[in-house]
Structure formats: C-alpha cells, structure tokens
C-alpha cells in the first residue's frame, strides 16, 4: 500500500468532501439571500445555536436519509440505482490529478503534492468527466417517465456538445505550456514575464525604460489565454448543468428533468455530484489559468531562499509548502465564489440558446483561438 498516496487522498477528501462541500450548500443559499436582499437559511439549530445557518447542511443530510427510497413502477430497478452512482464517481475521481501543491525536497524524500501525476493529465479530466453523461442518460431512461427522458436527452446533448468546445478551448493552453501534464503547467506558471517585453524583443527599442520594464505579470494561463479562460469556464460550467445552463433540469418546462423520479439519498447523490463539481471546476480552472498553487511574483526558489536564512532549509521548505497549499485553496474559493455569482446573476438560457452558444460561438472562436495562439507563439519564438 503506497501510504503517501493514501495520505494525500485522505487530505483531499477531507478538505473537499468534509469542509468545502457542506459549506458550498450553505453558501449557495446564503449568497443568493444576500444578492436578493433576503435573510436566507438561519433556522437549523443545535441546542438553540444557529451560527448563521451553518447547520443546514447537516439538516439536509438528515432529511435526505429519512426520505422514502422511492422507485417508480415500470422503472428498471438496477439502472435506477446505478445512475446516481455513475454521476458521483467521476466527480470524486477527477480529484486524483489536481496538483494542490508543488514538488518539495526534504533531504532525501520528495513530496509531490498530487495524488496521481499522470502524463496525460488534462485528457484524464475530459475522459472521466465524459463518464458523468452516462449518469444523466441512464437516470432518464431507467425512470420510465416522459419528463425524465426529455431531461436526460437534453442533458446528454448539452454535455457532449460542451465536451467538444471544452477540449478545443484549452488547446491554446497546451501550446503555450507545451504539456498536457497539470503539474508541469503549475510549475510553468510559477514565474513572471514583462508585459511590454515584446517591444524590446522586436527591436523597436534597444532597452525598455526601467519603469516600463517593471510592469510584470505572472505567466498565468488567464494572462496568456484570456479568451481561452472565458470559453473554458463557460464550457465547463455548462458541463455541470447548473444555472444558467440548467436546461436539462428546467423545472418550469420539464418539471425536474432526469431527477424527477428520484428521492432521498438517490437524489442526494446527484445533488452531491453537482455540488462536488463546483470545487472540482474551481481546481481545474485554477490549475490551468490561475497559476495553481503558485504565489504571484514570488517563485518557489525565491521564497525558500528568502526565508531559508531565518528558519533553515527544511523548515523553510515546509512553510513554503503550507503557503502554496493555502494559496491554492484560496484561489479555488475565489473560483467557487465566481461560479456562485454567475449562477445567481444570470437567468436560465433557453435550450436553443445553450446549443447555439456552444456550436455557433464558442466552437468557431476556439478554433480561431488555436491558430491565433499558434501564430503569436511562432512570431515571438522567431525573435526571442
């Protein structure tokens, strides 16, 4: 048994499943309440203590467990049970390739803070993520209900459409960093570049003035691929089927889509998968576009060298590791906040609008993005 891997899995599951997940369900209600000028969830109490409604996730779980385990007549019982499992497993398994910290050397031992350091990192995300489509399809088919089937058809068409655009919109990132490996991408983003450095490289001036040379940006994906960031975030949010892309659910049109014949914890697993996807999306977007665990303007060697003199090499590396992991989760929380804000700001798209956005806007734009990126890289390479 590889115990270091087990330790990393335990850490990741504790943070995501036990800390972030319940709090997200609370944030969902509390943030919507703040944005809509309401008070929001504040009733669940333990011994008269409400703590801003933080016990509501517990009350939710208790309620879901106490509901009847309902299977409609004519449903395929095995498939009906299988669908929620297929929905939640990909969401959990995606956690395996997220680098929540860099590589740290303590004497002889190397700490690589990622559960599985796969060469084909991002392809793994797409491969596992596409399995979630089966959950929706099977749920709709097994329920023996017209609304469920409509919902699952919508869900499958939407998810496979956005899968294409999601893949094409990050090709620019592969080209910029020259790798599919998420750990390598994080390392590549742990530096800075001069925003106006190209003026010097093209020979327009011999040397930039110091104050212009001083303007620097981290080499994050969001600065190198701004359009890619917007397109990828849109696509991956549509993949999660939460509002404003919740056409498969559409409670005003098709009642509740493929969730319709589900109750209790079977529904709870769909719900958990959906909420689990929020931090997972946050982690993937952070790793690709927001520098992962890197602290802006303070590369790892600089940080260790700076505090190494005070604390000694080993302790400095340890502190650096803690700082990196904290920075990573702070960025993830910012991305969660962004998704929640989008979810509570925009009204739901009509289904044709969702599909148009995918095939007619993002797909051509992402193809163009690939070639503009390629052109820019080659022109810059030719002068540097």
């Amino acid at each position, binding site marked *: 048994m*590889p115990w270091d891997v087990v330790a990393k899995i335990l850490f990741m599951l504790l943070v995501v499943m036990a800390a972030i997940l319940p709090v997200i369900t609370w944030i969902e209600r509390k943030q919507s309440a703040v944005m809509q000028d309401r008070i929001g969830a504040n009733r669940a109490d333990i011994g008269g203590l409400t703590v801003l409604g933080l016990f509501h996730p517990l009350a939710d779980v208790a309620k879901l467990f*106490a509901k009847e385990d309902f299977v409609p007549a004519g449903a395929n019982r095995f498939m009906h049970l299988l669908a929620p499992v297929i929905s939640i*497993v990909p969401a959990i398994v995606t956690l395996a390739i997220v680098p929540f910290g860099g590589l740290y050397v303590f004497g002889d031992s190397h700490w690589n803070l990622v*559960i599985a350091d796969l060469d084909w990192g991002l392809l793994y995300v797409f491969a596992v993520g596409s399995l979630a489509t089966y959950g929706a399809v099977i749920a709709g088919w097994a329920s023996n209900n017209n609304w469920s089937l409509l919902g699952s058809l919508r869900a499958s068409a939407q998810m496979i459409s956005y899968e294409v655009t999601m893949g094409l919109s990050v090709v620019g990132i592969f080209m910029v960093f020259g790798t599919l490996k998420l750990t390598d991408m994080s390392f590549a983003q742990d530096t800075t570049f001069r925003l106006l450095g190209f003026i010097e490289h093209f020979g327009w001036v011999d040397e930039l003035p110091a104050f212009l040379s001083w303007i620097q940006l981290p080499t994050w994906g969001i600065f190198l691929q701004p359009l890619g960031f917007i397109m990828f975030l849109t696509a991956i949010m549509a993949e999660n089927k939460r509002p404003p892309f919740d056409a498969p659910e559409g409670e005003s049109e098709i009642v509740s889509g493929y969730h319709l014949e589900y109750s209790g914890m079977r529904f709870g697993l769909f719900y958990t998968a959906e909420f689990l996807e929020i931090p997972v999306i946050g982690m993937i977007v952070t790793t690709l576009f927001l520098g992962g665990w890197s602290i802006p303007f303070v590369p790892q060697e600089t940080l260790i060298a700076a505090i190494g003199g005070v604390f000694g090499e080993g302790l400095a590396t340890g502190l650096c590791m803690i700082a990196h992991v904290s920075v990573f989760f702070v960025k993830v929380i910012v991305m969660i906040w962004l998704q929640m804000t989008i979810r509570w700001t925009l009204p739901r798209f009509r289904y044709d609008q969702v*599909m148009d956005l995918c*095939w*007619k806007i993002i797909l051509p734009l992402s193809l163009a993005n*690939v070639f503009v990126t390629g052109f820019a890289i080659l022109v810059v390479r030719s002068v540097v």
Partner: protein
Amino acid sequence: MLADYSGVVILLVVAFIVAGVMLLVHQLLSPRREFPEKQEPFECGEQQIVSPHQRFAVKFYLVAILFVVFDVEAVFFYPWGAIFTELGWYGFWIMAVFTVPLVVGLAYEWLKGGLEW
C-alpha cells in the same frame, strides 16, 4: 509506470464505497410505504398515456453524430498542441490544412440547418 496509477485506483474504490455506503444507509433508515398510486410515473396528475421508451427527436442523434466527428478531430489537437513549439511553422500549416475539412463540415452543417433547434 504503473505506480502512478495507484492513486487513481484507490480513489476509484473510495468513490464507489462513498456512493455505496450512502445508498445502503439510506436503504436502512428510510421508511417504506408503497401503494400503486404513488408508484405511478409522475405526469402532473395525469395517467401516463405514452411510454417514454419510444422514438424521440432526431436532432439529438444529429448532435451525437456531430459530437463524434468533432471530438475525434479535437483529440488530434491535443498532442499537436503539446509539441507545437517543436513542430514550428511546419506543424502550424499542417494543422491549418487539417482544420479545413473541419471548418467546411461545420459551415455545411450550419447552412443545412443542422445546428438549429
């Protein structure tokens, strides 16, 4: 190289255990009061007159076919993107030629109304 995948395997097992335990605990805790009216498929109060296991709109098939075409083409972009700087201008023009059928196909699909809902 196989050691790399131990984390994925362990996480996969953990994921199935989490899902299984949640469903099992629910089975044990939940009440069970079944009667025929409750078990009926939900149709907003109506009897179900059309079975869902029938033909449905052809558009969904069309999207699935489109997906297969575009996703297979998209997969070729990944390795190309990862070694793009080594390929240089040669790779750029090769991929430009490769993309022409993709764009032509998309334009054809668009003009034929295959993307209309």
